[in-house]
């Protein structure tokens, strides 16, 4: 934890309820509320999309109309009225910025407050960032440096225009339009997102990152991310998100598709910190996200997620292990406090031979929250020598929260080896006592124990994120143990 001292923590805990809860007054271009075919067409037109894209959206909208919201998740909430949401909102001061100096100062101020100093990041961290406010990409850094290596990293709306062959080939190939209710909705109305293509044999020299922010009231955020790693390439991708504190619930329905071709590797990390609602459970973001990746021969996809925000989390980053010898990994920490509800986990679909997957899921529930792990491991009949190891640990703080585990294991091949284990426990009084005895205050002791509990997952995050995630964990659990 570096130089972060106890006093810092104390100060943090006092001041930081949800530090990203501010709203920036940026002039924006927002559609009236409601959703119909015309709105879908209008979004497509606004984005100056080719006809095939418009048709693709309309098809998704047709599917969506026939679908009903899924109810199987272990969460309770008042369903959003989908006609009460504005499906398009963009900071209106366009056009695209070529350099940082062109960016709206208000917006820059937002980033400064979010802790993303574009300048600084440029120099120090070496992270290329695509920043998305209210689903519209406002800034992409390092575009030129990356272009030299042949890497395409740009907003998906640009990619649709500039690289239609790639987008056309891969969009919807992993998460089809009719995959589920929210994916269909996203396919119809997504306004922007990030697109990334790593050419054959290229190792992406820096972390790619997308930063999402919901700013406008009464809007939903629907972004779409498409990452394609061509044969033998490698990319590490980060995603972060925040939203202003509002009393109403905001909807976030994103789709992320990863394609790892032969021998490629994609590492996808998320630190999700949407506004979780206040202490009484009012407001907060509904986070209904579909994330899925497909691995071809010898490819590897690794999902790492730290989920601390959102009133409702409904998210199952998955891997389809189609190619022989492919590997899927899932590392997750989900923290819920107050009235937050999380139903999250993963799916590992083993299709190819000698495929391997590992699942490490840590759930921490405090306050009056409910935290569920829901996962599926499926071994197809042709997946010889498939191997899976799953571990789900839950930590309970206080007596009003719940921790649940719903793993599904389906095996159709006799050579498969599956191990699943789950435990539930609380922070031991003796553990805290031991820390107290060594002069570590209870607050700090809990942070220490939680950190230890989450270490396996935190270790998988890129450095910069790991530090942020650690701090986030402490803040999310503020005051949860008496």
């Amino acid at each position: 934890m570096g130089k972060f001292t106890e006093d810092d923590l104390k100060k943090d805990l006092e001041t930081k309820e949800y530090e990203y809860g501010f709203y920036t007054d940026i002039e924006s271009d927002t559609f009236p509320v409601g959703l119909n075919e015309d709105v879908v067409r209008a979004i497509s037109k606004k984005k100056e999309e080719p006809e095939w894209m418009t048709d693709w959206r309309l098809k998704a909208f047709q599917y969506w109309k026939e679908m009903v919201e899924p109810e199987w998740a272990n969460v309770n909430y008042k369903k959003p009225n989908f006609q009460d949401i504005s499906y398009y909102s963009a900071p209106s001061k366009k056009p695209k910025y070529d350099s940082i100096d062109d960016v709206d100062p208000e917006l820059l101020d937002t980033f400064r407050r979010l802790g993303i100093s574009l300048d600084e990041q440029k120099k120090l961290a070496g992270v290329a960032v695509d920043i998305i406010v209210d689903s519209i990409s406002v800034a992409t850094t390092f575009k030129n440096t990356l272009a030299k290596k042949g890497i395409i990293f740009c907003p998906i709306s640009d990619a649709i225009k500039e690289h239609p062959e790639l987008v056309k080939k891969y969009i919807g190939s992993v998460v089809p339009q009719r995959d589920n209710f929210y994916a269909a909705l996203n396919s119809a109305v997504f306004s922007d997102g990030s697109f990334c293509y790593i050419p054959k044999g290229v190792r992406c020299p820096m972390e790619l990152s997308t930063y999402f922010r919901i700013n406008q009231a009464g809007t939903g955020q629907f972004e779409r991310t498409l990452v394609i790693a061509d044969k033998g390439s490698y990319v590490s991708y980060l995603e972060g998100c925040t939203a202003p504190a509002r009393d109403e619930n905001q909807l976030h329905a994103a789709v992320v598709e990863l394609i790892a071709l032969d021998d490629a590797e994609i590492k996808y990390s998320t630190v999700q910190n949407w506004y979780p609602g206040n202490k009484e459970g009012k407001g907060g973001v509904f986070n209904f996200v579909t994330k899925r990746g497909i691995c071809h021969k010898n490819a590897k996809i690794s999902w790492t997620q730290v989920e601390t925000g959102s009133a409702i989390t409904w998210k199952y980053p998955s891997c389809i292990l189609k190619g022989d010898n492919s590997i899927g990994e899932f590392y997750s920490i989900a923290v819920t406090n107050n009235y937050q509800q999380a139903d999250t986990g993963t799916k590992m679909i083993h299709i190819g031979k000698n495929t391997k997957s590992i699942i490490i899921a840590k759930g921490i529930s405090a306050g009056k929250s409910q935290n569920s792990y829901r996962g599926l491991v499926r071994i197809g009949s042709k997946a010889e020598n498939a191997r899976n190891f799953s571990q789900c640990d839950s930590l309970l703080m206080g007596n009003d929260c719940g921790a649940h585990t719903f793993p599904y294991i389906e095996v159709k091949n006799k050579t498969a080896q599956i191990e699943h284990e789950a435990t539930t426990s609380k922070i031991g009084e003796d553990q805290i006592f031991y820390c107290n005895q060594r002069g570590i205050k209870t607050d700090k002791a809990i942070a220490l124990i939680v950190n230890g509990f989450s270490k396996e997952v935190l270790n998988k995050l890129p450095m910069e994120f790991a530090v942020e995630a650690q701090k986030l964990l402490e803040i999310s659990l503020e005051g949860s143990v008496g």
Partner: protein
Amino acid sequence: MNLKDKLVSSFLAFDDYLEDSSPIHDIRNKAIKIFENKGFPTKKEEAWKYTSLNPIVNKDYSIFPKKESSIEFKDVKRFFLHDIDTYKIVFIDGIYSSYLSETIHDNMDICLLSAALKKPKYRAVIEVYYNKIAENDSLTSLNTAFAKEGAYIYIPKHKEVEKPIEIINFATGNEAALMMQPRNLIVVGENAHVQIIERHQSLSENAVFTNSVTEIFAEKRAYIDYYKIQNDASNASLIDNTYIKQEEESHCSVHTFSFGGNLTRNNLKFYQHGEHCDSTLKGITIIENKQHVDHSTLVRHIAPNCESHQDYKGLYADSSTGVFNGKIVVEKDAQKTNAFQQNNNILIDDKATINAKPQLEIFADDVKCSHGCTIGQFNEDALFYIRTRGIAKKEAQALLMYAFANTVLESVKIPELKVRINKLIAKKIGVSIGFNI
């Protein structure tokens, strides 16, 4: 007419035929309405995701057997635990056989539910216990609607039953397809001890569909050992619904041995109402061909300081399918709960399938809960080691199978039963290893 309509319409005739004054008249009528609304469960329901009833409910079963049949003891002796003395409650095609049974009314009741439902002297017990923990799901309701016969066991305070009780349901095959709905009520009083063995056995290759419900009440410090032997003929399907309510410091264990039958579904539910309860759920499943066995367990920890242990082993050959759907719920007040669940499976052939869904739902913080689930195959090194000692491959595999299943077998408390199950396993895997574990 499909089976559901047939059942609903024949209920009217059935209800007329029974005496109106029966205390359970209302319960029956309510239950049939629930079944009428819900129908047979389908794969769309989460609890039935991996088990389809379609192949068995699409047959034309006779619901009330037309004639009474009798069977000779010598023909069915092998299905009894004949080398020791036991109490026996035997039903043939759902009708009580006094000839094969051995019941008692002296200081405890080991007899028939039909008698308990009719006779006024049992009314107090029936009112307190009957249909109190059985759930309102469609199959249990169906049983409740048609329940008229089954075992009635009432063990009063401080009574230790000196020999095991066997409950056996035979199906003779006089009907081309028979549906049976036995209903058992077992009440074990304070500090009383009892051992029960339950078995369903079809004597022909005709289709049999059994939808059984058993309610078991364990009062304070009661000890109950319950063994279910499921080694039925290949055309017999069983849905077993067992509900157990435990009071303070009671110990209750259920062992399920699933070797036979066409489709077997075990719904086993434990409710721990008193403190310091101990529940044990164990099972061995060894199946082949197209057999399907589904273990669906629930342990609901309601009171603090309780324990539960689950251990299910499965071996699946040919194109058989196994399902394990185990759930542990720890309610808010059930602090200091220790709940453990283990499920180990081995797939022997390529077409075999296993679907496992071990679930935890925890609402209390000071608990220790864990579940583990593995799917794998025999250790090649172990197999090789045994074979280098001159043991043939088949026997070597059998040895490993025994070792695999032994954690369940070793806790069987009736030695003769243990021997019997050993033999069943040996027969099932086609070897004789010449010793008992």
